[in-house]
């Protein structure tokens, strides 16, 4: 070996010291035996290399960088050859922090993609390559017991969400889920969550629609609006409740709320409104009485009450 660097550690906490040594074997004839071993960090020469010659002629230079403040830096072992500084070996130093504890883990059961999507906050950047893994195992009741583990879910690079496919899940059984973050300086685990995947279902918004002008020809009441709605088709097998919010398009009036409402109706009359006024209506639904997340509010339906 004609210039080989060995390191105490190639990855350290930011600001910690790093010790390196560079060895030049005795049979490196093409190297001037008297020349001094020099160190460079990136492109800056580093003083403080302590050089010694071993009985067998091997030369060793050791250096300690007191505080490594670069998250990434190249340390080179060099030697003067004529008037050019030759690099004999080079290593990459990395500095950062152990992974912070992931938090705000939340999951949703998506009936469109039939997958269970969890997302989390990764916490501050530890400046080191850090792998996140969504881990889970099947359980019972309040998750005191651990049954079969589920295949780990590895998110795409730099993503803080992962989706577990339906085939790995028992929707109506307890599931324990947590996030593990790991890098060269350690591992951290988020708090565990325990739930039935189906209880975290989030439906797509319902669809609102206008009615044909009153078929019997009866004059429309000026303070009422008629419309119909139906909750999201793929969720019709679920018992649900919905709620309606409406407000005049103009002016500052806040939303008025009508709740609870059934998951669909072919004909709904909303009264107590101002005549000759344009209203904006939106609805959302949720699995009920069994647990679930409210859907987002539907796109607006715009209707106008008739003149008095």
């Amino acid at each position, binding site marked *: 070996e004609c210039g080989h660097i060995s390191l105490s550690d190639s990855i350290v906490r930011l600001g910690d010291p790093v010790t390196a040594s560079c060895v030049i074997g005795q049979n490196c004839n093409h*190297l001037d035996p008297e020349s001094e071993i020099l160190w460079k960090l990136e492109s800056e020469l580093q003083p403080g290399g302590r050089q010694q010659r071993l009985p067998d002629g091997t030369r060793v230079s050791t250096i300690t960088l007191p505080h490594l403040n670069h998250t990434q830096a190249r340390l080179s072992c060099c030697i003067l050859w004529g008037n050019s500084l030759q*690099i004999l*070996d080079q*290593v990459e130093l990395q500095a950062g922090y152990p992974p912070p504890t992931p938090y705000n883990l939340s999951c949703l059961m998506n009936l469109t993609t039939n997958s269970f999507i969890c997302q989390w906050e990764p916490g501050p950047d530890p400046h080191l390559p850090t792998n996140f893994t969504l881990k889970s195992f099947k359980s019972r009741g309040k998750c005191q017991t651990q049954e079969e583990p589920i295949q780990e879910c590895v998110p795409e690079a730099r993503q803080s969400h992962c989706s577990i496919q339906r085939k790995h899940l028992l929707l109506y059984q307890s599931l324990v889920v947590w996030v593990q973050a790991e890098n060269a300086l350690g591992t951290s685990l988020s708090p565990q969550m325990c739930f039935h995947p189906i209880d975290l279902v989030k439906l797509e918004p319902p669809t609102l629609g206008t009615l044909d002008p009153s078929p019997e020809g009866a004059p429309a009441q000026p303070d009422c609006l008629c419309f119909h709605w139906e909750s999201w088709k793929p969720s019709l097998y679920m018992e649900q409740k919905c709620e309606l919010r409406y407000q005049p398009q103009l002016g500052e009036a806040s939303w008025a709320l009508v709740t609870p409402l059934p998951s669909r109706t072919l004909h709904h009359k909303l009264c107590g409104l101002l005549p000759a006024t344009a209203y904006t209506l939106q609805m959302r639904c949720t699995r009920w009485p069994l647990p679930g997340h409210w859907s987002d509010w539907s796109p607006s339906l715009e209707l106008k009450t008739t003149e008095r």
Partner: protein
Amino acid sequence: TPLGPASSLPPSFLLQCLEQVRKIRADGAVLQERLCATHKLCHPEELVLLGHSLGIAQAPLSSCSSQTLEVVDCLSQLHGGLFLYQGLLQALAGISPEVTPTLDLLQLDVKDFAINIRQQMEDLGVAPTGQPTQGPMLTFTSAFQRQAGGVLVASNLQSFLEQAYRVLRYLAQP
């Protein structure tokens, strides 16, 4: 009797060779840029000693100098050199993901050029039997050595091609 300069080398062959040299030099320059950008290894002159200990050879083109031009020997050295660089470039495989596409393309173009010369020598009936000697296989004990090896090989290849270009232009003169 030795072939007179360009006396029997088809013009299209020489034009193709000149084109291939320009392509390989362009590929080589991209490789040097990538190695510099990715690994901050931008100066082959600071890696000369390392090159000695790694045993990175340079391919001779002595028969191609204008004073002592021997067309068949020159073609043979050109082919031998390209064959050597094919081996050196192969040893650099896995250098780093950012550099791999450039390295693969460079290898393909060098191999294309070597085969083009070999087949022309066969067509002229002056091809040596068997392939040229491969030379010692480069081995690296660290990622740095492989990256530094890449810088040195790319630099040596550029000067080899510079010489090749000069002689091919001389041969292509009408």
